[in-house]
């Protein structure tokens, strides 16, 4: 059968399941632990999937922000004897002013440097008594500057000036954020596979518990797809319901996370922003699709084994 034919078959089967057949639904007894197990599993997995999704989207945003923010700024540090530091700072400023690709440069004030050091040394830092290097913030334009050329010029005009273009620590941060985003998607894939595995087990248990249903329906002329459909529809609906509850609970939990603050760093940014809130809506139908596929293949395989 061609791929198109298979797809058509799958969509046809999904449509049949969605359409429903009340009489067929009644053929399989409604009770049993598999019902609770399926609903609970789908709910728990959907709850986790919401968090994995939030993690993935948040780290994606973080990676983009870090990459764009850091890519356009760099710092020149002046480490020179106290009597030379002012002259070297001015010389470095002049070099930066005449460097193509540098949009602007600015000597950071003592207050700004104090704020940077405060987390490590406390608020009452006597900056004037410490050999703190001077910092110049450099903002590049869209074309950027030639870092190697700038370093050479700084070495000639201001020997104590050192250019830090952030690439050394920018790359690992952005890489880490991207990797975290990848892990989020892997977590979602693992959640989907675990859901499929658990629903498969539950479906097989349900089929084994309903051997009499299979025997009797076959006796009166039921085709395997009919018997499978009776189970598939039930499991798909249970999984969708459980996933909807889990998704709502997960979304509420995400919404109740503390809002982002300056000191919040990464964790307070975990969540959905704007249109991102639509992503969790995809979880219940996807859970239903996973349940449909898992139950259908388990049912048809089991029915094939039962002679």
């Amino acid at each position, binding site marked *: 059968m061609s791929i198109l034919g298979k797809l058509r078959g799958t969509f046809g089967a999904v449509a049949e399941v969605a359409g429903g057949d009340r009489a067929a639904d009644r*053929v399989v007894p409604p009770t049993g632990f598999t019902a609770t197990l399926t609903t609970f599993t789908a709910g728990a997995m959907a709850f986790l999937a919401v968090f994995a999704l939030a993690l993935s989207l948040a780290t994606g945003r973080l990676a983009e922000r870090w990459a764009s923010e850091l890519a356009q700024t760099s710092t020149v540090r002046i480490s020179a004897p106290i009597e030379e530091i002012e002259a070297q700072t001015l010389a470095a400023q002049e070099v930066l002013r005449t460097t193509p690709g540098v949009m602007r440069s600015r000597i950071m004030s003592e207050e700004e440097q104090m704020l940077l050091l405060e987390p490590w040394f406390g608020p009452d830092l006597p900056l004037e008594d410490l050999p703190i290097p001077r910092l110049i913030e450099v903002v590049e334009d869209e074309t950027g500057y030639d870092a190697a050329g700038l370093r050479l010029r700084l070495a000639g005009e201001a020997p104590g000036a050192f250019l830090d273009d952030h690439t050394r620590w920018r790359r690992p941060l952005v890489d880490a954020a991207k990797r975290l985003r990848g892990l989020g998607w892997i977590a979602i894939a693992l959640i989907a596979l675990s859901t499929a595995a658990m629903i498969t087990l539950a479906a097989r248990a349900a089929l084994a518990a309903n051997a009499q249903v299979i025997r009797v329906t*076959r006796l*009166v*002329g039921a*085709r*395997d797809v009919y018997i499978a459909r009776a189970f598939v529809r039930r499991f798909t609906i249970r999984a969708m319901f459980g996933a909807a509850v889990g998704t709502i609970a997960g979304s509420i939990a995400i919404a109740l996370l503390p809002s982002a603050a300056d000191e919040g760093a990464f964790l307070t940014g975990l969540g959905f922003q704007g249109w991102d809130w639509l992503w969790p809506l995809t979880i219940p139908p996807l859970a239903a699709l996973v349940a449909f596929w898992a139950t259908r293949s388990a049912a048809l395989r089991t029915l094939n084994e039962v002679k």
Partner: protein
Amino acid sequence: MIELENVAYSYGGGDLLTDISLRLQAGSFHFLTGPSGAGKSTFLKLCYMELAASKGLVQVFGQDVAVLGRDKIAIARRRIGVVHQECQFLDHLSVEENIALPLTVSGRDVYAERQNLADLIGWVGLTNQRNQLPPELSGGERQRAALARAVIMGPDVILADEPTGNVDWEMSQRLMSLLIELNKMGKSVLVATHDLNLIRTTKAQVSARVLRIKDQRLQLAGADL
């Protein structure tokens, strides 16, 4: 309709049935007799394709069962009504739903056929029990419900395995009269039973052939019945 040619069936290394040949023709009435364990139920299972023959040819409605896929077997079974000794119902469905089960599984609209269903339930005398669950029925009522389920699709062949095994004489007579009525409507009927009195009584009302399984083989029973 159903034809067996030199069929054998082996189970657990030993032959249960050997060299069986039979042709069930439209409108025929057959009894199949023999002691318990002789292979009567196995013979019926070969006829409705629950078991596959170890040797020989089984043809159902002109199709070789050995090469039929599962779906085609299911569809062929819709033309065969089966009454088991144990009846085999779905205990969570009402009597009416159980009787309508062949319609349900074949995708027919049960609501559209509700009048036929009601007539059939009346014909087997279960109108008052239609909403009960199978475990609430007596042995005779269960057998009549099984018979109603077997004929709801208007099958060409009816196979009954010890249909009177769990019921009293009066109920046996009633069930047999229903089967005779169906036969007169043109259905082929094959009844497996070890009750020789029942066979003798029924033979007085309908032209029936009596077959016997003896020493794993199928024989035509003679005047010794």
